[in-house]
């Protein structure tokens, strides 16, 4: 497994974070004074929300090697919690965002408990079932709008806020990755039995990972609800889960930069191809299949942008060949 150290990137990272926040604030002001096309503002915001989702899923798929097929369920949990709190209980916006994150974490934890009793692809089926079940429950619950969806959610999500959330998500995932926590998770991903032998309790770390992933995805859902001001159960259907998976694997599973890049790439690609109508939805999966055939590790698999993490300081086991490294790294 890779042992990542984190020297040297903090200063550059901080600079990038501050300039991104500044840029987003300028963007927001320009758009609100009508000197910039709101369409661009919209795309950038959606990119940011998607990036939080991919970072969240990457924590599961890339770091602990657990597969989630229903990640949109956590997003739905966040969106509906937040909408319910603000619309019906009139809770302040930021409190609602924090609360929905907490509820997402609890849901992640609760789903993790039965899922991690056995090894293998099990979590995939449980999350898939949970995704489909949850959408059905929402559709049949009239208190939260049922199949009509929920509207008139206060529009409070701003671009700087989304930007801040993305930066926070990157920092959280990165700190998990470079800490003891992340190393234990990596050990579980590479060889669960061997990890157990050195005293790592796999269930403990998997639960932690899925709770954090649930938290991040729920925050993304909450931001989504307060951006579009309307949520509908079908938004969070299994197709959305597949979209998040596409972004993660296209960008490169296991890589933080890859997750952000995947979210940006897929969102922008779909917008640029809009003139092609339905054919863009054919081109997108075709690109994904092609990418995995040509480059199974994804665009940035095994790599990181230097301002996020400096891999030059990575402590590599010397004897392993690079291609084997990449292959092992991405095995869930």
């Amino acid at each position: 497994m890779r042992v990542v150290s984190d020297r040297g990137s903090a200063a550059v990272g901080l600079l990038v974070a501050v300039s991104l926040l500044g840029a987003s604030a300028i963007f927001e002001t320009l758009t609100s004074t009508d000197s910039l096309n709101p369409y661009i503002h919209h795309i950038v915001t959606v990119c940011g929300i998607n990036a939080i989702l991919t970072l969240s899923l990457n924590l599961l798929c890339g770091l602990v090697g657990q597969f989630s097929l229903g990640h949109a369920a956590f997003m739905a949990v966040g969106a509906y919690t937040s909408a319910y709190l603000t619309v019906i209980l009139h809770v302040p916006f930021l409190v609602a965002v924090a609360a929905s994150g907490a509820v997402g974490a609890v849901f992640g934890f609760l789903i993790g408990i039965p899922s991690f009793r056995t090894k293998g692809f099990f979590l995939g089926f449980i999350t898939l079932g949970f995704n489909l079940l949850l959408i059905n429950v929402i559709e049949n619950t009239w208190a939260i709008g049922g199949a009509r969806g929920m509207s008139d959610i206060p529009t409070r999500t701003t671009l700087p806020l989304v930007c801040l959330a993305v930066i926070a998500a990157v920092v959280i995932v990165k700190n998990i990755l470079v800490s003891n926590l992340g190393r234990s998770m990596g050990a579980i991903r590479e060889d669960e039995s061997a990890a157990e032998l050195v005293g790592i309790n796999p269930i403990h770390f998997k639960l932690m990972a899925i709770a954090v992933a649930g938290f991040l995805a729920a925050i993304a859902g909450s931001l989504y609800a307060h951006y579009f001001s309307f949520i509908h159960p079908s938004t969070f259907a299994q197709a959305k889960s597949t979209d998040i998976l596409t972004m993660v694997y296209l960008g490169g599973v296991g890589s933080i930069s890859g997750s952000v890049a995947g979210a940006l790439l897929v969102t922008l690609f779909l917008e640029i191809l809009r003139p092609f109508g339905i054919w863009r939805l054919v081109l997108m999966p075709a690109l994904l299949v092609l990418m995995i055939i040509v480059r199974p590790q994804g665009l940035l698999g095994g790599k990181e942008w230097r301002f996020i993490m400096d891999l030059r300081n990575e402590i590599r086991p010397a004897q392993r060949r690079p291609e084997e490294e990449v292959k092992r790294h991405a095995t869930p």
Partner: protein
Amino acid sequence: MVETLVLQLVNALRIGGVYSLIGVGFSMVFAIVRVVNFAHADVFVVGAFIGLFAAQLCGSFLVALLAAMILTPIVGLLVERLGYKSVSKAPKGAQIVTMLGLGTLIRNLLRAVMGPDFRFFPTLISGSVPLGMIRISALDVTIVLVPILLIALMDAFLRKSMLGKAMRAAAFNREAVYLMGINADMVISFSFMIGASLAGAGAVIYSMKYPTVHPYMAVFLGMKGLAACVTGGLGSSHGPVLGGFLLGFLEVLVAGYLSSLWRDLIVFAVLILVLMARPTGILGESYEA
């Protein structure tokens, strides 16, 4: 009273038969390559379109069924080549995502080529059959009996034929199969093709009862088929059939005696409950996916 009961039974058998036909394809592929064929539901839709065109051309049920069963495997083979063979060296997660992507690709390609319209599937079988005091439509009899017949044939094929034995051997131990001089690549291709063929048959049968064919018709149905299959035991030969009929009966019970709103919900609730109690499904053996 008796009439309602018989009709409910027919409903349950019909739904269960379609789930089983879909589930066998999922299970057969998973048993050998340990990857869930997420494009399976979309292969099913291709089968429905093939059946539709055959039915429009000659208006015969048997021709539509045979056309779907013979032509759908071509798509199954394409799925195997693109979604499995070309990425078989990639990590497992990437393989699963490829399958998901391929499913989306087929679905949206159908949508782009065929258009979003709902097409009406012609009525191919009319008349009714007397059964004691009540009469059952010949259509219902056909769509209950054909899946059961096909599954029985499938079972005999897996047990008796050389290829069927090779498939079971490959499911048991992939590496040993190579040493026995069996062309494992061919076995894998056949598992995708036979799965696709059964899905094609299921699609024709499904479209006869719910006569609208459109590109997104199987998004939810495929998920339910997969849920039935996983409940019964993914990778086992009888698991998907058991799971399919179990969920078919459950759905009819819930829709008939509780509320049809909870019908879909119960499928996934049962899936999660069964997986909690028995992670490999009711009849499944343990596997390391």
